[in-house]
């Protein structure tokens, strides 16, 4: 067990090192950021001065070493547009995004698990069709489109919820729903197939044929079987929530990281983009590390693999 955890940890560190190198070079293929960041009327001297200030004129390897050194202590320089240290800005946005991702996850779970369970028990019924259909619909509906519809119907026409911002508990309902709607599909399918799988297991079948299995135990078996993949799905879907939040946070003016991504890209704010990319990668890698550990605890088989 310990050996497994250690090797996973080492892997995580290596991955993060790779991310840093990748992020450094990814941003450099764009060419010279100087022309964009200085105002149109600026003189050539100012451009040169700016290039010096940012260190863009040093040899690439020196820049890389500098970048890595800074990254280790969380220093990605100042955001060019917002004139303040980039990493703290990103960290500051984390709670809002976690809140949104969490709300989306809860919404998805509340809808998807019952639908998946019922669908798995009674495949082919109308509830099963509904579950599968909602799942497919969630995967096929562009979130920005759904978000705008939600705002105009629930905020403007009905006046039930605020149309934007993160002011009260009511504020999270609409963006949380849109976030959850997209993730629902995977959950419905997962629960459904796990349910069906356990139904088909020999020991359950035998037990059932002998009339030995009360519904409660049955559900307990199923739930445990569902729980294991569910843990991993939560870990993975956080990474996707971050992607989806770019759209949802922009439309709902939700002050999270997705919104920051949109602005950083709009202003071509290199240090900020780098800080966001590294930070989100760290969060995702940590999440997946944690889910692996949780997995190892829930599912003893893992310990003996690798």
């Amino acid at each position, binding site marked *: 067990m310990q050996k497994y955890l250690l090797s996973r940890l080492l892997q995580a560190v290596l991955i993060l090192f790779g991310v840093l190198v990748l992020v450094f070079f990814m941003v450099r293929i*764009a*060419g*010279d950021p100087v*022309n*964009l*960041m*200085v*105002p*149109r*009327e*600026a*003189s*050539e001297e*100012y451009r040169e001065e*700016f290039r010096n*200030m940012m260190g863009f004129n040093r040899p690439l390897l020196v820049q890389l070493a500098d970048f890595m050194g800074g990254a280790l202590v969380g220093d990605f320089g100042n955001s060019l*547009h*917002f*004139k*303040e240290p980039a990493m703290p*800005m990103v960290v*500051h*946005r984390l709670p*809002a995004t976690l809140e949104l991702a969490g709300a989306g996850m809860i919404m998805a779970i509340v809808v998807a698990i019952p639908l998946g369970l019922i669908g798995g028990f009674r495949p082919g019924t*109308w509830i099963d*069709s*509904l579950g*599968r*259909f909602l799942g*497919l*619909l969630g995967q096929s509906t562009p979130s920005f489109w759904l978000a*705008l*519809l939600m*705002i*105009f*119907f629930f*905020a*403007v*026409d009905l*006046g039930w919820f*605020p*149309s*934007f*911002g*993160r002011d009260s508990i009511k504020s999270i309902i609409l963006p949380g729903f849109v976030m959850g709607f997209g993730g629902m599909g995977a959950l419905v399918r997962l629960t459904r197939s796990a349910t069906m799988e356990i139904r088909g297991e020999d020991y359950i079948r035998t037990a059932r044929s002998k009339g030995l299995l009360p519904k409660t135990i049955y559900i307990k078996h199923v739930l445990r079987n569902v729980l294991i993949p569910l843990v991993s799905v939560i870990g993975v879907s956080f990474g996707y929530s971050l992607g989806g939040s770019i759209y949802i946070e*922009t*439309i*709902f*003016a939700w*002050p*999270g990281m997705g*919104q*920051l991504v*949109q*602005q950083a890209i*709009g*202003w*071509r704010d290199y240090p900020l983009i780098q800080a966001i990319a590294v930070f989100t990668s760290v969060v995702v890698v940590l999440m997946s590390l944690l889910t692996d550990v949780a997995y190892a605890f829930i599912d003893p088989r893992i310990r003996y693999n690798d």
Partner: protein
Amino acid sequence: MLSFKRYWIAFIVAIAGMLALVACAPTTVIETVVVTEKEEVIVTQEVEVVKEVEVVKEVAPPEMPVGTLTVALSTFPNSLDPPQTAERNATNASQTMFDGLMWVNDDGGLDNALAESVELSEDGLTYTFHLRKDVTFHNGDPLTADDVVFTYDRGLNGGFEYSYLFERAKSWTKVDDYTVEMTTEAPDPLFLRMMATTLIQPAGYHAEVGEEAFVAHPIGTGPFMLVEWEKGDHITLAANPNYWQEGYPKVENLIFRPIPESATRVAAIQTGEVDIVQRLSSEEAQSLLGATNVQVIRYPVDRVYYIAFNNLTSGLDQPTMDPNVRLAMNYAVDVDAIIDALFDGFATPAVGFVTPGNLGFDNADPFGYDPDKALTLLADAGYPDGFEMDFACPAGAYTNFEQVCEAVQGYLREVGIETNLDLMESGQYWDLEATKALPPIFGDSWSSTLGESINRLEGALGGWDASYSAWSDPVIDDFMAQINTEMDTQARADLYGELQVYMRENPPFIYLYSPNAFEAINSRVQDYRPRSAEDYNLFYTWVAGE
């Protein structure tokens, strides 16, 4: 918002339809949408014209600041520190906390603000500013000459992007506590206007708390004081009780809410969550006409959109070096149709680089759409079958500009000029524009906040000396040099006029249009007066019914 209810129904029906699809019932989704569509259109067609609502004042403005005014911004202010604000929204938010020595009033004229009086020396090089003695910063410190000197020192030496703006002054010295003397290299007719945009910051407070704390929580002499700034969410300000303009401001709490998506701004003004929304498209403004308690405002913006020609690099051996070809291209584009289709008619065709509100505007007729004349001119120039050329425009930077460029491409095609339009992400675009690496024709726009066009002219036509220019013409250079040093307003106006005539005969651009800005306000908002430079003052704005 009937249309949206309909749409929602359509959506539900569509969901039901797809449900049926999965359950294999033969229902087609498209048809359900169809039905709602029919009624939809009737709704939109009822509203034809944007009416400019007369603001009816039911009661007099309050004596004391009362109520809360919430303003939606279309971007996230990057900073509230005056020399560091990067764009209009940030400047506008910052401007509520600060004052300059001068002030551009709502008629576009210059008034004294923190300066009680200004004297200009005989040679036109030395300005003496006498400061008001009754002004304090938000922390209670009185405004003195030291603060003005500090503002200039910081602006020039602070390492800011806009430091070069302060190079306009040659020197600034404190004469006594309430007198500052500034000099310029040469007579500068626009120097005082620059003073209006230079907001005075407190030397004492800055020294006390340091650069970082000042940037995080700046204070000034302005009508509102910063209470809280939650990045990405809101900026909260409160009325300054000791504001030097007696009886102002009129609202107690001022809140800025950044909402980047314009459709969300349209929703938020209808729900009453915000009182002022800016930067709407004409379509969005139109959709708000039926909404209760919402007024739509429209005003012309001091910005010219154009397709520029290049005679410095990529355009050198191209047909566009011939002025007749450039004239032909101006006649080939139906600017009126573009304005009708993309701006619902709410834009003014450009007749040059001097806009209607600018000094020296000569009110000439636009070129007009005349494809036959264009074809004749092209044939005379030796291109009866047209030619092929690269064309670039920035994407995502300006309202509908991608579509404008596509339309221009379509019109040029009709007179035989086949263009390869490259719509580039704006950052990359301006990179190339700065290195003069764009194709022979490229689209852009230029605004002006000075009430005059000289910056716009220099920026777009300054040749190799200007970062974003791809055009050089000695005649134009000569005009610009004269305008820059001519202190007499009428003489300057005449120079602008002559230059415009020249620029129409030898067009360095395909002139497109000056747009209108659309905003919407809650009808309780009174005395909100945005200007053509897309800025506004909020100290006299008030909310009724509080």
